[in-house]
């Protein structure tokens, strides 16, 4: 990177004019120039953070550690299920990060030694860091639903990490007979992408309506309500009347056990069965967060609401789905916001700048049909007292809006994806 930022220029110009390269200035510049920030995880949070660190201060050395050569986004993977998008179109590589001067190490991080400030990698090597950003996303609590383990997921896919699981569920839907039942088990809060299960039910309804119109969808939910519920239900009634049934926890929707052999799900009151079964299991922070001692009893990572520094390990920042950032949802957009915040916090620290409060956003679009979009948007102030939703702003799309409004939001959903993925990987 040969680009000189304006700040660097001022610094150089000042030094040259005065002819005074004082000891303090050189030491500080050297500290900043040699600072090494390591980011674990190349998803929405990690990739965006690595690039923003380089953007805020090209003098910082940034290394991204990621196990896979390519990242497949969970957002828009529902549209692969519906047959609207290919998996290729939601798959992203790391060339953009390399162009920005980020060193990309393709390896699985297996542990962190916070005292020695080193990340150990599969294969026995390790990487030293001055600051560490951990963005591991989610892992599943296998066995939290009795009988639902990795093997069961080959019969009843979760498809909640996009890739092979998405294609498996798609094949099952394609093979399902007309008049069949698609059953989904939706988890309790907190989990990745709160509107995701209901968007999935919507777009699968769209596919079934076109290709297998006698089919039904049953959502078995561990919760009593869900994100954008009024808007989803309004849309289902209008677009897919009589096709989607939602069973809340109190009415027996919570799935306690599954049997992949008989394709049954066991609720509090009765057993359910279906032709295609999608179990979205309870979740927790990605594995490395546990290995690094960043999680608490909840399975997620407590962080300082102002800086996203781990409350359990100094010098380590946790962003994205793994972090407890209530009231922000676990979404790609929230991860993008955390990423920008942490890039500013780390760069500011290395430059000895005072830390200011932050203001960040979340906007999640869901499609109910290719021309029918809805959204939730919120703005949050990051303060020492916590993350606060700005009152009087934010909220969901209006109920009863006309077709043009829904069409505009469907159009903007596509634009949202193009932009946020360009920021992360483009």
């Amino acid at each position, binding site marked *: 990177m040969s680009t000189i930022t304006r700040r660097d220029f001022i610094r150089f110009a000042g030094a040259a004019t005065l002819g005074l390269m004082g000891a*303090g200035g050189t030491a500080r510049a050297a500290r900043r120039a040699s600072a090494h920030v390591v980011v674990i995880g190349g998803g929405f949070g990690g990739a965006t953070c690595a690039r923003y660190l380089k953007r805020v201060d090209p003098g910082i050395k940034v290394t991204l550690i990621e196990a896979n050569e390519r990242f497949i986004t969970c957002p828009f993977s529902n549209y692969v299920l519906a047959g609207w998008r290919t998996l290729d179109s939601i798959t992203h590589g790391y060339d953009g990060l390399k162009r920005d001067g980020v060193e990309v190490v393709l390896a699985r991080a297996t542990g962190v030694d916070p005292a020695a400030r080193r990340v150990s990698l599969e294969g026995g090597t390790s990487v030293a860091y001055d600051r560490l950003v951990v963005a591991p996303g989610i892992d599943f609590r296998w066995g939290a639903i009795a009988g639902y383990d990795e093997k069961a997921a080959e019969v009843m896919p979760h498809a909640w990490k996009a890739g092979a699981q998405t294609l498996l569920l798609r094949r099952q839907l394609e093979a399902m007979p007309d008049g069949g039942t698609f059953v989904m088990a939706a988890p309790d809060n907190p989990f990745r992408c709160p509107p995701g299960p209901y968007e999935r039910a919507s777009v699968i309804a769209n596919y079934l309506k076109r290709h297998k119109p006698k089919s039904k969808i049953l959502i078995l939910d561990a919760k009593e309500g869900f994100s954008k519920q009024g808007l989803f239900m309004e849309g289902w009634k209008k677009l897919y009347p009589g096709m989607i049934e939602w069973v809340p926890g109190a009415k027996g929707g919570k799935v306690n056990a599954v049997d992949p052999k008989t394709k049954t799900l066991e609720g509090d009151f009765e057993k359910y069965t279906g032709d295609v079964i999608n179990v979205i299991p309870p979740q927790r922070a990605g594995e490395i967060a546990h290995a690094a001692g960043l999680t608490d009893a909840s399975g997620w990572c407590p962080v300082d609401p102002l800086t996203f520094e781990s409350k359990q390990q100094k010098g380590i920042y946790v962003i994205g789905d793994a972090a407890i950032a209530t009231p922000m949802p676990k979404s790609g957009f929230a991860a993008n916001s955390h990423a920008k915040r942490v890039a500013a916090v780390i760069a500011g620290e290395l430059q000895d*700048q005072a830390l200011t409060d932050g203001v960040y956003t979340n906007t999640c679009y869901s499609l109910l049909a290719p021309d029918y979009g809805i959204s939730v948007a919120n703005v949050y102030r990051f303060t020492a007292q916590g993350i606060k939703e700005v009152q009087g702003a934010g909220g969901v799309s209006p109920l009863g809006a006309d077709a043009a409004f829904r069409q505009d939001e469907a159009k903007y959903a596509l634009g949202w994806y193009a932009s946020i993925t360009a920021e992360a990987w483009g």
Partner: protein
Amino acid sequence: MGRVRQHLSLLVLLPVGALAACQTTSSSTPAASADQAMARNIANNCFTCHGPGGRSPGTIPSLDRLSAATIASRLKGFKSGTEPSTVMGRHAKAYSDAEIEAVARYIASGGR
């Protein structure tokens, strides 16, 4: 402005111990830089949907060729509701007019 820049350079050249003392006695510079940090922070929120640097690769309008006056007046319109929108009204209501003007200047000047 020239004086402020030179002051910043001097700060950088001072030993670290003295730096803290200088910062506490200099009132305008940290405040100006805090405002700048906030403008950059808010602009970065815009770029998530409007594209890197405000250059949109998709169906959401780009911001990078708009003047500060246009950005500020549209945002104020979204905030008051005089300008119809899908999602922008929900965002704009979260910011003060001063923040709107600062972020408009920041985006229109290409991130400075």
